[in-house]
């Protein structure tokens, strides 16, 4: 794919933008936060996004039926990126990353036909699935202490998962665990109903007003076909999990692109309006250079993201490297963007009344979600073979 949008994509972006503008202005995000909304997001918006086909973008149309009306030309990272970038601009709180990029994708890649049947309801926005993979305070999917013990036809699942994005409202959970009791121990992803006995979900409120959950699993009894795919031969889900996490990180980077671009435009507008020393702030050369520098970083990032998205869609050999580059770069871009936006707004930038702080907080969560710049630079270096 060329590094420009096709006509269909531009049209799709326009529809997404129109939908989010109308239904999810930043003030809506502020309202959800101020009212400490138990969901932390709008289910209505989620269903509206379903109608637009956003929720089926990462699944096989055969699994979701035709109900979403997704056009065949659409359906890939490029489109997902467009949706998420727009979410970033509007601070729209949606379960896009947790439910679509992570859970739908894992089900699509690994699920049996019976398990994939859940995807129909996911695509309509009626069912939410969260993925519980993280155990410590950093992104390290290989660190799994959670155990699924196989005893005959039953599994017993125990462990603790942290920072499970949207886990507080999930109907189902996908849980990574070491399956024990097979010929060889192996990592598997298990499908668990969130209200199963032994599952304890504790909602946690994050700085961006959204929610995640701590999931405590205490001897949760499951049938052996709760494991995605099949348990015999022993599943090797680790590689697929790594790939799905890399794709999700890239989508997260697209949201960050939206945040950085929105902050840029808002700051530019502020500098053009605010006067000190009898002139517009935008007329000070020191500030012009700061904006020019920021613009350069934005443009570099955009090129990288577009290429990474098409790299995924085309199935290029190096797509994982591209994804790592994307998330690493966008983490750094967001550090720059949030620091500049706050600083160049002056006092108003550190008030709760201004939207700038809402972007700053969301950007920090996004930066640390699915691996920070340090993690992804390291992963990139590994792929360079150094």
């Amino acid at each position, binding site marked *: 794919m060329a590094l420009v949008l096709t006509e269909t994509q531009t049209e799709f972006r326009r529809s997404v933008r129109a939908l989010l503008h109308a239904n999810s202005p930043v003030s809506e995000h502020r309202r959800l936060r101020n009212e400490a909304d138990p969901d932390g997001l709008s289910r209505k918006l989620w269903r509206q996004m379903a109608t637009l086909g956003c929720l089926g973008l990462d699944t096989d149309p055969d699994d979701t039926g035709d109900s979403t009306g997704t056009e065949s030309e659409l359906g890939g990272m490029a489109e997902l990126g467009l949706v998420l970038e727009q979410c970033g601009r509007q601070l729209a709180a949606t379960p896009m990353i947790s439910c679509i990029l992570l859970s739908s994708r894992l089900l699509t890649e690994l699920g049996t036909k019976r398990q994939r049947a859940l995807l129909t309801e996911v695509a309509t926005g009626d069912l939410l699935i969260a993925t519980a993979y993280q155990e410590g305070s950093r992104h390290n999917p290989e660190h799994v202490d959670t155990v699924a013990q196989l005893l005959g036809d039953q599994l017993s699942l125990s462990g603790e998962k942290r920072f499970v994005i949207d886990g507080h409202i999930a109907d189902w959970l996908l849980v990574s665990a070491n399956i024990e009791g097979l010929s060889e121990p192996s990592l598997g992803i298990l499908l668990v109903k969130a209200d199963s006995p032994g599952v304890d979900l504790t909602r946690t409120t994050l700085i961006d007003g959204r929610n995640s959950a701590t999931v405590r699993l205490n001897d949760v009894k499951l049938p052996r076909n709760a494991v995605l795919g099949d348990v015999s031969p022993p599943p090797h889900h680790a590689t697929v999990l790594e790939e799905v996490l890399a794709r999700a990180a890239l989508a997260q980077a697209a949201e960050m692109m939206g945040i950085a671009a929105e902050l840029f435009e808002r700051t530019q507008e502020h500098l053009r309006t605010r006067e000190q020393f009898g002139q517009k702030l935008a007329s000070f050369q020191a500030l012009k250079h700061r904006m020019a520098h920021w613009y350069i970083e934005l443009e570099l990032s955009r090129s990288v993201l577009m290429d990474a998205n098409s790299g995924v869609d085309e199935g290029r050999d190096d797509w994982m490297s591209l994804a790592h580059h994307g998330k690493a770069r966008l983490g750094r871009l967001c550090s720059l963007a949030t620091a500049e936006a706050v600083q160049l707004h002056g006092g108003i930038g550190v008030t709760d009344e201004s939207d700038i702080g809402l972007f700053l907080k969301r950007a920090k*969560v996004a930066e640390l979600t699915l691996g920070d*710049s340090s993690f992804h630079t390291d992963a990139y270096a590994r792929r360079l073979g150094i």
Partner: protein
Amino acid sequence: MSSPPTSPEPPADLDAFREDTRRWLADACPQSMRGPVPPGEGLNWGGSDQADQSEDSRLWLTRMAEQGFTLPEWPVEYGGGGLNRAEAKILRQELKALRARPALTGVGQLLLGPVLLEVGSETQKLEHLPKIARGQVRWCQGYSEPGAGSDLASLQCRAEDQGHHYLVNGSKLWTSYADRADWIFCLVRTDPDAKKHDGIGFLLIDMKSPGISTSKIRLISGESPFCETFFENVTVPKAQMLGEPTGGWGIAKKLLQYERSAAASLGGSSAVGGGSMLELAKEVVGLQHGTLADPELRLRIAQLKMDQSAMALSARRVGEEKREGTVGGTGAILKYVGTELNKKRYEVLMSILGTQGLGWDGSEYKPRDLATTRAWLRSKANSIEGGTSEIQLNIIAKRVLGMPD
């Protein structure tokens, strides 16, 4: 200007002074006033509103104030301790050894006091300094306005000469703790026809004066420490003008120097809720083959440590130069370096905490981590308050390097 009286005690008695001070402090300092300030608790800012201070904190302030130890080097008649430099140093050392928290802080003690001491009339000094030293009056700073931030001298808040009093009208923005302060020092326009720097007065105003109101502004960290302050036909006695009615700008700048050197000291600390950054990193990130498991973060921490050390050494050099009387341009860099460093320090802390630093509240997060996260948000203002980083760079370029506007 009167110079502080020197202590009657000859240097030979310094050991005795240390002994006495140590013994007194050991008795006077409540246990809960030793060690780091726990999350959720704040230092004592003095003033009539002591509601958020513990019994111990009030007691500690009272005891220290009785000795004049809240402002040890000030003259006794103004509420100070009348100590000479060597004694004051001993007091600092003994307080540090006890890990005692400051009994009093705030803009009265740190910013206004030193300026009053220098330029105030005898009556003004006798009226205000002892109350500052005893922590009886809490002050706030009325400089900025909606239209006057970086361009402070363009301020509009008006003080009209009405014969025996001034009539003040206008508003101030970002007035920290105006809602809890007893008095405010304000920059006001006394002569609207003069050039902008020449028509400014420095006025001391009782916050209980009729016509003053405040409205709180919330910060991104969730606290509401600053306000917009409104003045509507506020009557202020003329005796409350500090210096000449049109000489306020010079005083304002003097005070800013104290403010900036106080702000500069922010970046040096590496404490987090009682522990150190290095301990936190080892606890949260963990070690692998004897070094921090995240190699990039490890280098960022090391870089930060180097920067902190460079900052501390420069601050020390400025101090030594001052004593030698060979003041160079280094002092002008400290506000910029200290505040930028503090922001960087909190960015590093957030990277260390990872997702466990993303909580806003709730039992799933440690109080230490929640407090660090709020402090990270608060640190964003450091390079804005007290004159922005950009303005500091302008000052360095212009005043130190002599570059044209």
